């Protein structure tokens, strides 16, 4: 009878509740902060390229139509509804990332890893590789209007690539032996050797200059945002832990 009672008491233990609070609080702070900065960076550096591409997607501008087209058309300005929604959804997306990252940080700390803003930066770069660079290495960030395979097929490939790259990052960080490095390399390469779903033919109306700039900007802003994700996640994880200890 006694062990059973102990178990029930443990279920609602203050330590477990404190762990929920610490993970959720750190993740929400880190995700909101990194997401807001990521959204602003996207609005400044990515959105103009996207809006430029949409002029070709809608047919308002035509590339190779016989006459030369200006590379500097007038673009729509700030749209409160559209860009406001983008800010909200970027913050949500990055909060999703930080929830996963802080949870993994808590597991790593249990195994003796030091978690703070400095080590968090490495976590952020690993997260960028897993969630952004690895899938984008073959499914390049798409400018609106490009030809692409069925979206459901690409989502399956994207998810599998993020999962394998994520496991590879963990193995590189915590595997600690040669075999785990080899498995990590195999996991990183496999999705790209197998190949992603591709379109049957090319039909994109957007100039290649815009497509290349869009991919470069998406990766650049992604790296900056993920560096912040890791740094903030490590920082808030550490400070929330100190706060919990101080109040205990």
């Amino acid at each position: 009878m006694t062990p059973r009672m102990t178990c029930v008491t443990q279920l609602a233990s203050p330590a477990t509740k404190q762990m929920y609070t610490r993970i959720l609080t750190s993740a929400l702070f880190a995700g909101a902060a990194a997401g807001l900065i990521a959204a602003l960076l996207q609005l400044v550096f990515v959105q103009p390229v996207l809006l430029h591409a949409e002029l070709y997607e809608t047919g308002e501008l035509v590339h190779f139509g016989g006459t030369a087209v200006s590379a500097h058309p007038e673009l729509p300005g700030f749209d409160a509804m559209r860009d406001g929604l983008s800010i909200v959804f970027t913050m949500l997306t990055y909060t999703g990332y930080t929830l996963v990252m802080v949870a993994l940080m808590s597991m790593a700390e249990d195994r003796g890893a030091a978690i703070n803003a400095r080590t968090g930066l490495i976590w952020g770069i690993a997260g960028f590789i897993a969630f952004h660079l690895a899938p984008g290495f073959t499914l390049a960030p798409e400018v609106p209007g490009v030809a692409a395979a069925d979206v459901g097929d690409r989502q399956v490939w994207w998810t599998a690539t993020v999962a394998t790259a994520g496991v590879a990052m963990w193995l590189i960080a915590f595997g600690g032996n040669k075999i785990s490095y080899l498995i990590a390399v195999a996991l990183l390469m496999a999705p790209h050797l197998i190949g992603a779903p591709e379109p049957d033919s090319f039909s994109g109306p957007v100039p290649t200059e815009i497509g290349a700039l869009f991919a470069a900007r998406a990766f650049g802003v992604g790296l900056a945002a993920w560096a912040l994700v890791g740094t903030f996640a490590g920082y808030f994880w550490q400070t929330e832990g100190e706060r919990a200890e101080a109040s205990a």
Partner: protein
Amino acid sequence: MTTKTLNASAAGLGFLPAVFAIVLGLGVVTLTGHVQAAALHDAAHDVRHATGFPCH
């Protein structure tokens, strides 16, 4: 005996908050990045392109 039970249950439960956060986080990312419902797709359109999710 009682001490053993305590340790085992504490270690087992220690994982729960992390697992909960991972499921919640992946759920949020799936919602903002992948679900194709028209309203969600339109609202998240620019973010999906900029963040490298397959969009259309």
